């Protein structure tokens, strides 16, 4: 092939240099005050805000403190408006859930001008961690080959699957209860659900607490499902929104726990019995699955 | 029978014959123009390359005429479809005229 005479190439613009990767985040004012429990621990850093573990009023009472820092890119008026609006929306939803008996963290304090929301620290571990631990223990216990299938799915009726099936049922009930209360979560994943060990002497808000299970709760998938992080939640009872909630959870579950994907039907079965229009929502879920949430787009 | 149905439902017919200097160019035009489907179900279209009508006896590079037959349910549909075809045809011919390899080579040689 002949090589063409090269014309003067257009020079691309200079790419920017990466800014310092060790960027220090300013703490909200409340966390700059003294604390006998020691400095707050940064738990997660999402796009919306940062979650700290700190103490509330006394050093022994742990607290989840969510900070929505002001965004330097936003116009200050818009930033203040949004931060305030979102904090207030989140607290109203949390309070509505609590009044309706949906297990969510209790509110401790709100400072909407600083974008700070302090909540009860939910003990236990995220469903994601619990399920993965369960699957790991199962793989250790039954180190049989998977026959080259590359995947070793948990069957519903297999030996030892009962705790996981039970957990899935409680997840379905928790989501149903949430929807029944008129709340759509907006970001349901197994990271946004905690397994709170059953408390001694306390009836569960949801689930099937059998007596005497408290001691063995750890690592047994036993516990109450507590839904957390209502940063993207909204109030509403549209079947479509509820179905999208389930769809997001289904997708998240499938990608996070592919080996337990088949058990997701248990979540939906339990959900179906939680409130009157749940079957309609499940029908809608089929439509949402078909179109894959996203619309086909015109160019 | 089928042809009769076709004539019944698509009574408005127009045939365009486009003679090209070479069979190659006629074939290029055919390839470029026949890909896009006619969007309206009220219009049918066929493309063929053959000698010009009434010139069937000549031999050699005779297959250099593009025959396009448009059939439509109404004259209006026919006009819209043929107009659109003519616009595309015009573009194809213009590209041939100014961008064919020999044209570019001749220009490169003369400069």
């Amino acid at each position, binding site marked *: *092939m*002949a*090589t*063409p*005479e*090269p*014309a003067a*190439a*257009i020079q*691309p*613009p200079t*790419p*920017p240099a*990466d*800014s*310092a*990767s060790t*960027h220090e*985040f300013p703490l909200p004012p409340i966390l700059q005050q003294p604390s006998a429990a020691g400095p707050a621990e940064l738990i997660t850093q999402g*796009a*919306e805000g940062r979650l700290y573990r700190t103490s509330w009023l006394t050093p022994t009472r742990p607290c989840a403190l969510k900070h929505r820092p002001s*965004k*330097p*890119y*936003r*116009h200050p*008026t*818009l930033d203040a408006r949004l931060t305030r609006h979102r904090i207030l929306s989140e607290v109203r939803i949390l309070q509505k859930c609590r009044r309706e008996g949906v297990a969510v963290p209790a509110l401790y304090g709100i400072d909407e001008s600083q974008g700070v929301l302090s909540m009860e620290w939910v003990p236990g571990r995220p469903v994601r961690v619990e399920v993965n631990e369960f699957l790991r223990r199962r793989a250790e216990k039954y180190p049989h080959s998977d026959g080259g299938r590359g995947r070793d799915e948990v069957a519903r009726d297999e030996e030892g699957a009962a705790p996981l099936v039970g957990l899935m049922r409680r997840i379905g009930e928790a989501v149903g209860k949430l929807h029944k209360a008129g709340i759509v979560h*907006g970001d349901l994943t197994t990271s946004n659900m905690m397994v709170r060990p059953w408390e001694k002497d306390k009836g569960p808000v949801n689930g099937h607490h059998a007596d005497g299970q408290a001691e063995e709760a750890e690592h047994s998938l036993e516990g109450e499902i507590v839904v957390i992080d209502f940063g*993207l939640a909204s109030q509403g009872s549209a079947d479509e929104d509820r179905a999208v909630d389930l769809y997001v959870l289904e997708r998240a579950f499938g990608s996070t726990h592919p080996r337990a994907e088949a058990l997701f039907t248990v979540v939906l079965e339990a959900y179906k019995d939680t409130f009157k229009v749940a079957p309609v929502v499940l029908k809608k879920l089929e439509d949402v699955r078909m179109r894959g949430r*996203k*619309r*086909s*787009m*015109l*160019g | 029978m089928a042809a009769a149905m076709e004539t019944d439902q698509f009574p408005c017919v127009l045939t365009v014959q486009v003679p090209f200097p070479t069979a190659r160019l006629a*074939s*290029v035009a055919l*390839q*470029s*123009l026949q*890909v*896009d*489907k006619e969007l309206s179900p009220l219009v049918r279209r066929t493309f063929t390359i053959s000698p010009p009508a009434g010139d069937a006896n000549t031999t050699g590079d005779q297959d250099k005429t593009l025959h396009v037959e448009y059939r439509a349910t109404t004259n209006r549909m026919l006009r819209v479809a043929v107009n659109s075809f003519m*616009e*595309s045809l*015009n*573009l*194809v011919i*213009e*590209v*041939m*005229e*100014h*961008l064919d*390899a020999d044209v*570019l*080579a001749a*220009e*490169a040689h003369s400069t």
Partner: protein
Amino acid sequence: MAPLYALGCEGSANKLGIGVISHDPTTNTTRILSNVRHTFNSPPGTGFLPKDTAAHHRAHFVSVAREALRAAGLTDPARELSCICYTRGPGMGAPLTSTAVAARTLAALWGLDLVGVNHCVGHIEMGRFITGAANPVVLYVSGGNTQVIAYAEQRYRIFGETLDIAVGNCIDRFARTLQIPNDPFPGYNVEQVAKKAFYTVAADRTTKTPRDPVLLDLPYAVKGMDCSFSGILGAADLQAAQMQKQDALLAAGGALKEGEQRITREDLCFTLQEVVFAMLVEITERAMAHVGSKQVLVVGGVGCNERLQEMMGLMARDRGGSVYATDERFCIDNGIMIGLAGLLAWETGFRTPFEESTCTQRFRTDEVHIKWRTD
């Protein structure tokens, strides 16, 4: 192995762009040899119609293509090029088809392979090449598209997108409301008007006094990873109508009501940009947090906007990363982006047979198998 050359033809909207690009698969070096563009601008207050835009592309194809060849120094494209790349979609049907007809003719004349290219993938590959961003979260914003994209397993996956109209469409239509000219493009002119919100000019036009722009009341519509612009456009149009009422009232010697905010074109344009760009930055940040990326690449015509780039930069800085943006030569629809994405596909063996070389108005970014990326 010598570098490979491709001609790219883009005509999915009101720009006809043709260019020549080279890529050397052994060294993975890319070179732009020419990048020619001709834009169809409709008069102020109007948008471009598919029929007129297609006629524009047909009228200018030959001259633009010849200029692209001349600037690249190609005299024997049949031997010099590997393939002819054209935009398969998404975009407006008639303009897409007119460009495809011409591209097919070139491929047939020169005996070359045809490669149909996804317009969005073209933008992404061009942006990656120009900025050197290896694996960024991509914000693709134009008159027809608004998507937040991240690469995973040989697909460009859409994390968030508009639920109704594209952000560029929102800005362009608002420019029409205010009779802001379409030349060179409406978004650019809106940006210039917005900049004027930062100062007042004395009546004799000799002195400028700095002022704080007024953020007017427009809705903010982010829903999870997605956003919506039609409600904002509607609210901005209402504000513009209110402004015209104020204009008439003041011209007639009247006075505004006590406490009524005087609405100006400058503050309106400023506010529209502040609100819609904040939404875009927010959904981009969400995607970055989700995939753990620190790089963000902005592509598409709206990506030229300096305020958007600045806001994106502030966000990226807070995440310890940076924003990669290009200028109007590469951001705005062009032929070389189609040439580059097409050539990369061609190198992996991809061809578009003639009989399948159609166009499609709907063509999702995540439908394309990105075979040339193995990361």
